[in-house]
């Protein structure tokens, strides 16, 4: 039984391994007694950490047309709410935490400042080898001030030479292309070329009532095509350097260039329609990655990352037209200085410059003891300008924010790796400055915070097939510049804004058992979150400001079951129940009458299933035919506090149940692939958000070429 772990360790030291993730992964392969496919070892190792982590094998999905968001939406605890079609705004929530409370990483590098063209709904699934979702308790190697967890997209780091090129075409004039490639010479010079292109008209049909322009009376419900909702995004990445050299296991310099443009069809709901508004963004990101094992001392590993990002993003709302859903318009005579959606016509441009430097030192004293130290520095500068503004504009004077996050962890594991435990502490500090320019006064403002977080994670194999996990973290999220300083206009500053805090607890049981050709995996987790001082935008008529508003208590259970037969049939079912309750007793000095009410506008019960059957050698010895079906369920939920208002009049986001189906055909052992997919099979009226209808039934065809050696 001890042979395989040794073999795996040997493999691990010879091949290129994921940049940062490896520190936590490397020490665990000894558990892999049950694993027969060594190629999946990183995935398995990620899953077996003491942290509550969902690790998704993205390679299984490389023939699908899904983006990373859609994949995440099928896992426990995660809910992604999209406002519309391809490229639409979305909100990501993890166990009840949303927005900036959850942090995103690409190979361990924070993606916060990458710009909207590099968000998870743009990245093609083919870029990822696996996706790790850390729930509540976040390992120190992901150095960030996450309140509720983190998502780390891990790209393929192992294959020396490969080319993965795909193109898909689908309903609503949707096109997606992606290319991922690497070439490594025998002397250790390596070059990566990656890119993607996404386009859609998003002209799907929705159900709307159109009011009479004179009387204001609403007409009957019509099914009408969206006419101003096109989206495109594009990205190119080149990365070159050396691997497996004396001076570095990996040394890479890279450049990412990306851009997107999104037409905006509606305001906050489908009552307000626009025909000219668009948002755009472009990013230029130079990157640096370095890794060296046995750095001066045997057992010491240094990983260092640095990048800068230059992101320009803009909102353009300059039209005086008043559109209706038919696409007709009149030129406004009243309020003609307002844009279609904005109160003031705008050509606003954000000009962001960000820098990141992070280093991780990991020292393996012996097989029992491992120490790691991580430091992460980020700097963000935001400047705004608006060539058509007649009055002061936000960020006219730059707003800067720097954060330092240091983490220290110690891990103990038994030689058999039956038990392991990690204790860690994190120091969060930030300083921010801006000039407060309102009502003619210019006042320089500076704020800084220091907070300490800590946690512990442990796992124990009760039986070879049953692993128990428990983890706890006391964590902080520091306010962002805009949250603290406002934008100099109607978004007011709040110098008293405090960091958000949360106590996160997870307890879980994972089972895995193989009976001949049958493999059964199951997981059940209980989670508890006690969070306070949530930073939320608070509006009072014209003015708004960020405040420490909510305090919540979340408890929940999530489970998943996966059955595999002979690498041919796969069935997976999971579901999540999370109950987030308002634990605030007073609000602005007035009793809070919604105390212990469930937080509204947040899904609390959802689940998904996926089933696939792979027919090998369907027609030839090297082909495979795969049939897949999947589904997603979200229970209806209230837009406002559940206890308030009489039952019949409440606004709800209706229950959703959607089904997808796909057929994939692969030739030459996966070199040539073609997939046909149908999403929203039943053509249901879908809403993730109140009164924002999502696309109906859609078809996609994907062609993919994958070559590697």
């Amino acid at each position, binding site marked *: 039984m001890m042979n395989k772990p040794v073999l795996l360790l040997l493999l691990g030291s010879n091949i290129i391994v994921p940049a940062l993730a490896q520190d936590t992964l490397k020490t665990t392969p000894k558990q892999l007694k049950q694993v027969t496919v060594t190629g999946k070892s990183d995935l398995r190792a990620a899953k077996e950490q003491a942290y509550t982590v969902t690790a998704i094998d993205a390679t299984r999905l490389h023939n699908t047309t899904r983006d990373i968001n859609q994949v995440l939406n099928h896992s426990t605890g995660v809910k992604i709410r999209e406002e519309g079609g391809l490229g639409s705004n979305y909100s990501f929530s993890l166990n009840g935490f949303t927005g900036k409370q959850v942090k995103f990483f690409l190979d361990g590098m924070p993606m916060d400042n990458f710009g909207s063209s590099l968000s998870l709904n743009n990245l093609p699934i083919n870029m990822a080898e696996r996706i790790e979702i850390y729930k509540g308790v976040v390992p120190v190697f992901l150095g960030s001030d996450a309140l509720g967890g983190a998502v780390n997209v891990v790209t393929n780091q192992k294959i020396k030479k490969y080319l993965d090129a795909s193109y898909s075409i689908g309903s609503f004039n949707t096109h997606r292309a992606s290319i991922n490639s690497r070439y490594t010479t025998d002397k250790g010079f390596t070059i990566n070329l990656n890119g993607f292109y996404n386009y859609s008209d998003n002209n799907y049909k929705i159900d709307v009532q159109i009011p009479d322009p004179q009387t204001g009376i609403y007409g009957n419900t019509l099914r009408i095509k969206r006419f101003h909702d096109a989206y495109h995004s594009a990205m190119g990445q080149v990365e070159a350097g050396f691997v497996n050299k004396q001076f570095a296991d990996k040394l890479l310099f890279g450049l990412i260039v990306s851009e997107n443009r999104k037409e905006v069809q509606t305001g906050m709901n489908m009552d307000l329609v626009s025909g000219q508004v668009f948002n755009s963004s472009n990013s230029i990101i130079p990157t640096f990655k370095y890794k060296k094992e046995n750095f001066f001392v045997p057992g010491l590993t240094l990983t260092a990352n640095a990048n800068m990002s230059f992101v320009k993003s803009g909102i353009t709302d300059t039209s005086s037209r008043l559109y209706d859903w038919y696409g007709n318009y009149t030129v406004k005579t009243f*309020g003609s200085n307002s844009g279609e959606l904005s109160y003031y016509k705008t050509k606003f441009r954000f000009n962001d410059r960000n820098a990141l430097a992070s280093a991780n030192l990991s020292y393996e004293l012996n097989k029992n003891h491992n120490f790691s130290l991580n430091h992460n520095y980020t700097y963000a500068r935001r400047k705004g300008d608006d060539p058509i503004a007649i009055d002061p504009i936000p960020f006219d004077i730059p707003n800067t924010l720097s954060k330092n996050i240091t983490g220290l962890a110690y891990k103990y594991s038994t030689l058999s790796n039956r038990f392991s435990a990690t204790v860690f502490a994190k120091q969060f500090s930030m300083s921010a400055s801006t000039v407060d320019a309102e009502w003619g006064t210019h006042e320089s403002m500076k704020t800084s915070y220091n907070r300490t977080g800590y946690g512990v994670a442990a796992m124990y194999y009760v039986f070879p097939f049953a692993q128990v996990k428990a983890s706890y973290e006391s964590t902080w999220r520091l306010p962002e510049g805009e949250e603290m300083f406002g934008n100099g206009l109607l978004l007011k500053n709040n110098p008293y804004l405090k960091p958000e805090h949360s106590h996160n607890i997870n307890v879980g049981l994972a089972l895995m058992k193989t009976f001949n050709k049958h493999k059964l995996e199951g997981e059940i987790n209980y989670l508890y979150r006690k969070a306070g001082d949530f930073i939320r935008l608070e509006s009072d008529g014209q003015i708004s400001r960020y405040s420490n508003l909510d305090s919540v208590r979340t408890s929940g259970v999530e489970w998943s079951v996966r059955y595999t037969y002979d690498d041919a049939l796969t069935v997976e079912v999971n579901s999540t129940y999370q109950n987030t309750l308002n634990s605030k007793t007073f609000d602005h*000095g007035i009793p809070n009458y919604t105390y212990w009410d469930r937080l509204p506008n947040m899904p609390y019960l959802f689940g998904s299933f996926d089933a696939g059957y792979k027919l090998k050698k369907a027609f030839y010895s090297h082909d495979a035919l795969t049939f897949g079906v999947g589904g997603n369920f979200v229970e209806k939920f209230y837009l406002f506090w559940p206890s308030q208002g009489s039952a019949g009049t409440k606004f709800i986001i209706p229950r959703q149940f959607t089904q997808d189906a796909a057929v994939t055909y692969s030739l030459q052992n996966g070199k040539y692939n073609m997939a046909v997919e149908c999403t929203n099979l039943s053509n249901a009226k879908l809403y993730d958000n109140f009164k924002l209808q999502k696309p109906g039934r859609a078809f996609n065809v994907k062609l993919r070429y994958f070559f590697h050696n």
Partner: protein
Amino acid sequence: MRFCKSRYSQTILILLTIAVLLSGCYKPKSHFLQAGGSYILALRTQGATATSDYLLTQDTINNAAKVVSSTGNGIEQLAWCYFGAAGKTVFSFSYGTNNVGIGYGINEGGALYEKGRISFERMDCFGKGDDSTLIAIGAPWGGGSYDCQIQLIDANDIRIRKKRLTPLYMWSPLDVLNKWPTSIVVNDNKMYVSFYPLDGGTWNTEYTDTAYVTIFSYPGLDSLTTIKDSRTGPIGLYGNQIGMMKAENGDIYTVSPSSFAAGYTQVTKKSGILRIKNGQQSFDPSYFFDVETASGGAKLLTAAYAGDGLLVARLQLPGTDDINAVWGAFEVTNPICKMAIIDLNNKTVTDIADIPVHGGQYGAQWLVEEGKVYASITSTPAGEARIYAIDPLTATATRAAKIEGLEVPAIYKIK
């Protein structure tokens, strides 16, 4: 093996038990049913991300044991609302996110029902035209566009009957200031609209040394004249507040706050009251009440005419007004207000000691019924929000229904 199995199932059992115990703390709130009635109240509550508004009915409000609550009760509104009433119809106007106006009536069982709904562009200031007409004036944001839109809303059919564009007033064709409507009163076939000039982009108010009212024909909506008076500053404030009141004899009294907290960025005159005699198209030169001096430095924000020459008024406490207080009178949890009785004829101000220090409101619609005035008072020092029944003759008040929420922006009674 048997031992293993039992330990294995034990583990699961323990975990499941913990999970069930810990998540079992939640019990959905029990809804209580409220008897309907002829009072219609708008209730603003602490929403999840912003406030949320409910419209509900109540059979009585003048009872300290009664509770105005939206727990299981009331019609949910989609966004922050202005409220208005004409005849037997009460309107809510959702603001910002969807711009929908909904007309409600009360059925025989005392429950609200929807009469109809309309889409609108902007409505910022409301007034009653007649029993079947609500007047709404929309004003542009952003500067560079100066026309306001007067809209007549049919309260029976729930439709916009008439629209008229007007800048309210222009000093000259080169005028680049917006005129923000603050209050509407109809009297003697004329519509009186008070306003204040402001920079549309910055909300700066450069001209605060004159009170302005534009007079239109009603229901023709033709502009007749604009009258001015420099004894005090502009009349009314942002947010559909009551800034003009009609007395029994048709005289109109106007309220000039001259206050930073009311949204002015400078203050150059004393807060006070002017009069327009019944049917006249000019301010009464013989009448001005300097409320600020008479009250020892308080600012008059809004008031209700209670009969017999008495106003029930909300005043901003002396010493609470400076440039940092801008917009401070719009936060219900900012306790800078008190209530007082103003005797228009004797020019006296008498504080109502029974009402605690409290916060200002947007567009508060108080109810005048049988000589009493019912007003919503949100007092953070007192730790509660409550309706008070005010007796203008004695300058006293009694505690009426308790508010489970932030405030009651509007109280109406439909017979």
